[in-house]
């Protein structure tokens, strides 16, 4: 016989949860007391609930297992909302357990009461309220099942305090399996559609594979790469798909979209066939949907039917997990020996190589030693041998990291792609480091983003999380400033970060190391020194050229091929 509070913790144990991230408060005191009396589930005390959600989220991105968060009612739960929304937009499995005021007080504006079911509804895959302590185990099982199956996403379980009263004991059993008549995600694609898709791939003369977060999250990267190699098809990986196909492979074109590579955007624009594997044709990828890839037919593979033909009409929709769909495609290609026309593909590759020559990620360096942000990312890549987990914040530095840290492995690039949450990177890096203590974990951030969650310096001290923070400091909100330069005649409205702290002293105050870099010549020695300090969190405050812009940049409301290549040159 267990109390509701004990059942919450026992359910997490039975689910195999090792770490939860959270912050105690009145409504979850019974649960925290049950947590105290066991040692299987370990708890990480953050300094702000948003950070708990990002830690759980990043753990899920790196490991593929759902992250778990425990917060109290009211402000505890509302502070978690940004992190829940971040996970929702990027389809990350997460279970958030929120305390609630006692059942009889709900609706009476009780102390620390918020309708978190209502508040979170638009940004969760589903949420549950516990109405009877007997339902706790089954509901938590359902929450894990819903969060991690089909198109993954965050699930909130709201538990009123009186459901967890220590003296009220109930029978406990954790279900092994859950069946829900109203929820049956697709487990495989339609064979007829898959065959049609393979025929189109074989017949295509200018094909491109668009590999998205669904391939990375769906653990289908090996299959996708095998398909690309079998057919010699160029591959573009979206922001969420980076690492899904090795960047060092000749068949990789780079990222598509607003800050995509010249060759990826040109190839997509001129393609006759796009095979989208778990990408959702987000507005930052397509530019104008009316002008999107005028000659391309689209095969759209996605686990979520509502992603298909939402923004770009699919000629061949395939609803199913990328892994099983691509495996089936490979099976058909094993039997069917037809392959794409070699001459047509050779001339397509020839064209792509010419596009590669044209831009190829080129940027100008300064001759006075003032660093360009791109140089910093390339140096970090060098020092970490391209093997690090790179957790990014949001802004120019995010795009530079996406463009210049050439990921060869999936699940190493961890960023808030959909919601664009500043403050994500640092707690994300902490979440990854906790689970992969031997891996290099880097947070690429800016002085703007970093200040949105810098309180977590304290959590890092408490748990000994020696992440390396690469703060690309340009003294301004770089992406905002870039848009103001390009669209508002350089009126830098509120994009200047005045009164920056002394980051060295700040890091040191929490017991961490810090190094400031102001000249190109200091960069490599500083990075080498930082990464040699295996047991220390090192904050690198790296001053860079504030005038630098991210390029290529697509011209708004135009087609994929319309880009600024630098400040003066346009396609």
């Amino acid at each position, binding site marked *: 016989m267990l109390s509701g509070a004990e059942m919450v913790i026992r359910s997490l144990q039975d689910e195999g949860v090792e770490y939860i991230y959270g912050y105690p408060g009145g409504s979850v005191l019974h649960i925290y007391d049950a947590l105290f009396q066991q040692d299987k589930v370990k708890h990480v005390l953050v300094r702000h609930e948003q950070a708990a959600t990002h830690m759980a989220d990043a753990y899920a991105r790196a490991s593929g297992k759902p992250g778990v968060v425990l917060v109290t009612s009211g402000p505890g739960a509302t502070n978690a909302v940004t992190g829940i929304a971040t996970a929702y937009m990027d389809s990350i499995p997460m279970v958030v357990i929120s305390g609630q005021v006692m059942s009889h007080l709900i609706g009476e504006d009780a102390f620390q009461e918020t309708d978190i079911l209502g508040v979170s509804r638009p940004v969760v895959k589903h949420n549950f309220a516990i109405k009877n302590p007997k339902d706790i185990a089954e509901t938590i099982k359902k929450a894990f099942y819903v969060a991690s199956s089909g198109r993954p996403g965050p699930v909130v379980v709201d538990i009123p305090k009186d459901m967890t009263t220590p003296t009220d004991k109930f029978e406990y059993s954790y279900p092994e399996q859950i069946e829900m008549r*109203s929820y049956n995600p697709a487990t495989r694609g339609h064979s007829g559609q898959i065959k049609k898709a393979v025929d189109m791939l074989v017949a295509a003369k200018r094909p491109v594979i668009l590999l998205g977060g669904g391939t990375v999250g769906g653990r289908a990267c090996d299959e996708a790469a095998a398909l690309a190699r079998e057919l010699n098809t160029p591959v573009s990986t979206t922001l969420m798909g980076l690492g899904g196909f090795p960047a060092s492979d000749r068949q990789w074109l780079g990222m598509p979209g607003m800050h995509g590579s010249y060759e990826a955007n040109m190839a997509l624009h001129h393609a006759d066939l796009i095979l989208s594997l778990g990408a959702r044709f987000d507005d930052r990828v397509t530019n104008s949907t009316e002008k999107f890839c005028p000659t391309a037919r689209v095969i759209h593979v996605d686990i979520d039917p*509502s992603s298909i033909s939402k923004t770009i*009409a699919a000629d061949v929709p395939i609803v199913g997990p990328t892994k099983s769909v691509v495996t089936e495609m490979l099976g058909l290609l094993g039997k069917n020996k037809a392959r794409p026309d070699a001459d047509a593909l050779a001339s397509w590759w020839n064209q792509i190589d010419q596009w590669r020559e044209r831009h190829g990620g080129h940027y100008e360096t300064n001759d006075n030693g003032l660093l360009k942000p791109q140089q910093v990312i390339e140096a970090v890549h060098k020092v970490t041998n391209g093997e690090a987990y790179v957790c990014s914040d949001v802004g120019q530095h995010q795009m530079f990291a996406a463009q210049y840290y050439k990921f060869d492995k999936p699940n190493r690039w961890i960023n808030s792609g959909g919601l664009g949450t500043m403050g994500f990177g640092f707690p994300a890096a902490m979440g990854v480091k906790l689970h992969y203590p031997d891996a290099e974990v880097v947070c690429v951030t800016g002085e703007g983003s970093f200040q949105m969650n810098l309180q977590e310096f304290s959590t890092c001290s408490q748990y000994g999380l020696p992440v390396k923070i690469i703060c690309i400091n340009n003294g301004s909100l770089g992406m905002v400033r870039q848009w103001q330069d390009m669209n508002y005649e350089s009126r830098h409205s509120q994009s200047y970060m005045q009164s920056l702290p002394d980051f060295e002293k700040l890091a040191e105050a929490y017991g961490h190391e810090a190094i400031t870099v102001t000249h190109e010549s200091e960069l490599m020695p500083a990075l080498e020194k930082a990464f040699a300090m295996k047991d220390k969190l090192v904050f690198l405050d790296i001053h860079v050229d504030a005038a630098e812009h991210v390029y290529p940049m697509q011209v708004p409301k135009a087609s994929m091929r319309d880009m600024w290549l630098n400040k003066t040159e346009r396609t």
Partner: protein
Amino acid sequence: MRHIIAVLMENEAGALSRVVGLFSQRNFNIETLNVAPTEDPTLSRLTVTTTGSDRVIEQITKQLNKLIEVVKLVDLTDGDHIEREMMLIKLKAAGQHRDEIKRTVDIFRGQIVDVTSSVYTVQLAGDQGKLDAFINAIGETYVLETVRTGVSGIARGEKVLSI
């Protein structure tokens, strides 16, 4: 184009708010909405009428299906169907118009369900067009109050929406 979408969903607290929230969140239009439990008390049936291009309607049905508590749905306007809406309408019925209003109610096959010396309360069922036509025929000056249930619908013939 106008569509009538019938939805079977778990009869649970909060399920309706997910449907309504979805429509406002995704900028879909709701013209009418009604909901009630079915013969199986664990299920509710909801009927929503909405308008939009084919692309929007496709998104509406897909997004509704994605809600965890939605068990099954059908766009009734894809096939032959019957639609009905019920209206209770309170009409000024005094003096010389009293007979004329009674005659009009009969023509529309409505029923007078409550009477005072100056007011008729009429119950009328039909498709939306019939209810609109009745109000037109009576003339707005005689209408004191209306309440309409919103459209409910069912497919013609053998087809059933059940689990």
